[in-house]
């Protein structure tokens, strides 16, 4: 309730500021919202949204199916972990947005470059969280299964992986939140391939600030929706974790 009031109040102040001409350059909130509503049925904008979302989904999926197994390998075989750790520690701090030019050079198709960079960026939280989760698996839980004569692969599959699932889920949520950032950033620079970022550039060059803001509002709403979706899925799949 209080949060709704806060948001409404903020919007009202913005609206008033716009109407009174206090913020010269920006259209009033109501105009932006009307434009945003219009975008919801605008075919070309929707296809841009589709381009962004499909890249996000593809990138996330590829990252999950590669980084999680890689994390399991690194987390269970110390020799492998030790040998790649320097590489990981060198690569991880590189801001992935600084790799956009490189990605555009390596993948001439901007859609591919976008996906490649999303995969790269999403892989880190997935990899690190998987490894972290594995380190956190209760040794007594593993011993329990070993005590019944199960081998290391069975212990990995039946104990370590489910124990690590909440950490992997957190990794996925972090990854989801960065997919949009990376996708829109690449689109802003690469154009051509469509997407919300390309739409923003067009709106900007046409001096349509209302469209720019409306598209930004949608980008924010998509981010929120994605987060809500994944949080709900996580709560459902990992009920046991939330209940304890």
């Amino acid at each position, binding site marked *: 309730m209080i949060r709704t009031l806060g948001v409404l109040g903020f919007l009202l102040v913005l609206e008033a500021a716009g109407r009174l001409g206090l913020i010269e350059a920006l259209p009033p909130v109501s105009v932006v919202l009307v434009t945003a509503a219009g975008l919801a049925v605008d075919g070309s904008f929707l296809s841009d949204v589709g381009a962004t979302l499909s890249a996000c989904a593809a990138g996330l999926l590829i990252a999950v199916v590669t980084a999680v197994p890689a994390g399991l390998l690194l987390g269970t075989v110390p020799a492998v972990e030790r040998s790649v750790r320097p590489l990981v520690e060198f690569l991880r701090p590189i801001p992935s947005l600084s790799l956009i030019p490189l990605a555009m050079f390596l993948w001439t198709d901007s859609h591919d470059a976008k996906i490649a960079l999303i995969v790269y960026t999403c892989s880190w939280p997935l990899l690190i969280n998987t490894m972290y989760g594995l380190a956190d698996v209760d040794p*007594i839980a593993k*011993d329990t299964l070993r*005590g*019944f004569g199960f081998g290391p692969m069975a212990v990995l599959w039946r104990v370590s992986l*489910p*124990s690590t699932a909440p950490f992997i889920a957190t990794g996925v949520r972090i990854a989801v939140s960065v997919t949009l950032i990376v996708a829109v950033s690449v689109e802003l620079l690469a154009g051509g391939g469509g997407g919300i970022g390309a739409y923003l550039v067009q709106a900007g060059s046409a001096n349509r600030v209302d469209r720019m803001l409306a598209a930004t509002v949608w980008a924010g709403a998509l981010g929120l929706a994605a987060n809500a979706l994944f949080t709900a899925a996580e709560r459902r799949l*990992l009920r046991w974790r939330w*209940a304890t």
Partner: protein
Amino acid sequence: MLEISNLSHVYGSGPGAHHAIEGLNLSVAEGELLCIVGPSGAGKSTLLRSIAGLIQPTGGEVRIEGKLVKQTPDNLAVVFQDYSRSLFPWMSVADNVALPLRRKKMDKQQRRAAAQEALESVGLAEAGKKYPFQLSGGMQQRVAIARALAYRPALMLMDEPFGSVDAQTREDLEDLVLQVRGHHKMTIVLITHDIDESVYVGDRVVVLSKAPAHVVGDLKVELASPRDQITTREHSDFVHLRAEVGRLVRGLERTPA
């Protein structure tokens, strides 16, 4: 059945090393129910882990049916002291109990039936669909016991298995262990803090010293079976034996190691 010779185990190395077990010899006959008592931190759980092949002892050897234990042998089940950590929170109680049965030639239906039967035997017939966190500590402990029982191992290792149940349930579970042993020719090694319990349940009671643990007492319990919570415990032999075990355990406390 079980032969332990000159077993030693040291945790860590250098000046910080902890000698948990030193020169421990013990043998357990087929079908025997051996109780092990000893002061806290003596190395009882360490001994049990060595028997189960969960740790490689730093010295000596453990043989089960003549075979040197290098990794966990088949046909062995462990009930851990940390029962709550040994139940898998993502699985229902019934699935927890049924999981180890995947090692046996049993189909899903058989596994489910065996799990239900074991749960009934510990008085948790209705708990199968629940999750471990929905149960009290004592109930969780009984689930861990049911899981080992369902597995029907030749050798069952129990580490303070009745630690957090109420007195009534504790007596019921003691009788359950005696009954199971009678039905399915199981060899059982049971670690306990409770001197009365060791005498009531055991065919034999072994007393361990303070760390580094070795055997300081080995008593045969010759009480009539089937045992009965009331009459056995008031029998003069029982009273005598528990005094003897008590003296051995207490004696340890007085003389510094």
